[in-house]
């Protein structure tokens, strides 16, 4: 029986190619937008997303925004517990020595060698006031160069570059807690944005909360969403994605439906010579599955190629898990779209095949 749907598809090539192309392009659009959403998300907040932290203790009035949160931390009491680490985040600018050009960055202060430190032991074995920069700045400044904090004038030595360290679309400048003290000045010396823990630990959470009364524990996902611009960006892209999928349901349903209507008489004939509805439904669903798999596979390949030719300054991430997820959704969508047609097949009346109905 399965040769029947194949013979039909090869005989009506144009018709089936058209449907495959629609599916193909819808899938590409879905994949590309999801790739862009991913890319923007990483471009925006990779420092927090990649951070091996489970949750953050932030000031209550900050409403989950780590950049707004201010906590006065007793470092001596805190550093006794390595599982809870202070983190300082401060938007700022640096400039090369004797240069007017400023580079927007976000200072991020962590305890060198702690679980929060993406440079590993780098900061600890540092020379005075070492700074690690996001790799996006590697074209502008060189390793070993001295840069100045635009506000405090503190000199920093570029100790190296790190991958994927951004906060609110600016490159992160990773500094130690000591350097943080110098940049922040005397008043801000013991003021940090939050306390991070690497894994769920009720006892530590309680202790921190009793140490500083004006805060609350916030999950990492919430903190990422609280980064300026993050939610707005992701929401608009995901709105486009969800509309695209809804549109796909209707377009595909319409196409499959029109195709089935065209074939109603044919279904009638097949029924009259003894085909059962279930056989015809199976054969149609089989066609839909074949078309969908081929189109989506082609779209995945295309998206992969598209990513290669995309200029570097467009953030695009081909996340295989997410692509697989969206492929699954599109697959279900096209099966769903063909259900209307199934109804028509079941209703197709062999009497119509007799050419006239009284």
């Amino acid at each position, binding site marked *: *029986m399965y040769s*029947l749907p194949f*013979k*039909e598809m*090869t*005989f*009506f090539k144009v018709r089936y190619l058209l449907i495959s192309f629609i599916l193909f392009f819808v899938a590409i659009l879905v994949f590309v937008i999801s790739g862009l959403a991913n890319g923007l998300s990483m471009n925006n907040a990779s420092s927090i997303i990649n951070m091996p932290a489970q949750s953050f203790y932030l000031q209550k009035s900050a409403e989950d925004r780590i950049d707004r949160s201010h906590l006065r931390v007793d470092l001596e009491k805190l550093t006794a517990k390595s599982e809870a680490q202070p983190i300082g985040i401060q938007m700022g600018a640096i400039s090369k020595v004797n240069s007017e050009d400023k580079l927007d960055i976000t200072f991020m202060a962590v305890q060198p060698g702690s679980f929060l430190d993406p440079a590993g032991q780098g900061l600890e074995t540092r020379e005075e006031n070492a700074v690690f920069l996001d790799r996006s700045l590697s074209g502008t400044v060189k390793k070993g160069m001295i840069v100045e904090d635009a506000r405090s004038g503190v000199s920093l030595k570029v100790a190296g570059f790190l991958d994927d360290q951004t906060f609110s679309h600016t490159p992160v400048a990773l500094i130690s807690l000591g350097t943080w003290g110098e940049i922040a000045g005397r008043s801000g010396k013991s003021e940090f944005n939050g306390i991070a823990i690497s894994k769920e630990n009720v006892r530590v959470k309680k202790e921190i909360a009793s140490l500083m009364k004006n805060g609350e524990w916030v999950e990492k996902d919430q903190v990422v969403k609280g980064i300026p611009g993050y939610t707005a960006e992701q929401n608009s892209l995901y709105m486009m994605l969800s509309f695209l999928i809804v549109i796909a349901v209707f377009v595909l349903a319409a196409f499959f439906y029109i195709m089935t209507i065209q074939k109603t*008489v*044919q279904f009638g*004939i*097949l*029924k*009259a*010579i*003894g*085909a*059962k*509805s*279930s*056989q015809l439904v199976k054969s149609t669903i089989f066609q839909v599955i074949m078309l969908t798999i081929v189109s989506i596979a082609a779209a995945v390949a295309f998206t992969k190629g598209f990513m290669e030719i995309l200029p570097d300054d467009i953030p695009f991430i081909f996340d295989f898990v997410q692509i697989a997820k969206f492929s699954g959704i599109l697959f279900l969508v096209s099966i769903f779209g063909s259900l209307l047609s199934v109804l028509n097949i079941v209703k197709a009346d*062999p*009497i119509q*095949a*007799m*050419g*006239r*109905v*009284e």
Partner: protein
Amino acid sequence: MMMEPLILEDVEKSFKDGDKVNHIVKNLSFRLKMCEVVAIVGPSGSGKSTFLSIAGALQSPDRGKVIINGTDIASFSDVEKANIRLNHLGYIFQTSNLVPYLKVEEQLSLVLKMANQWSKDSKRKVKAMLIAVEMEHRSKFYPHQLSGGERQRVAIARAFINAPEIILADEPTASLDSNRSIAIIELISNIVKEQNKSAIIVTHDEQILPLCDRIYVMRDGQLIEQGNRK
């Protein structure tokens, strides 16, 4: 006595037309004998097609018995009726109604495959059937490459391929010229006699009547016998 492959007893079928009930077929009884070709004529709207669709297990009657090969199918489900169609009935339509994307030989093998009758012997069977309707030279052609008469020959071959006892033909000559019409009916008649089948032909075509064994007229939902050649 030879078994009668099709018996209709006191069959009734009505349709609702607005708030009026229309009796299309009423108190209809009919017996089809082996090896005979029966023609049914009548004005349009007299119930010919309804009769054919009840006899052909496409519709169930409201009342009465439809006995095909000794089994009353009047209350069969759709799936059971599909099986009856597949194994005991062959259809020939007004237009050939071939499946557009299948080659001539595939039109025939499809029926066998659906009936799970496909075996090593089937290829030979398909070929023999195509020779019988003089279409063997066209076996690799698609329907759109054939003439109207040729397509109807293929349709006849398709109707006979699964060895059904009864052939139901609905205006099989409506789209053909008179020479071809006669040739087609002769072909049906010949196969019926050779293979011990029986056929019902619903038609408007007066010139084919002499080729049929019995002629019935459908009038007001009843079948009235008009002529008997025997």
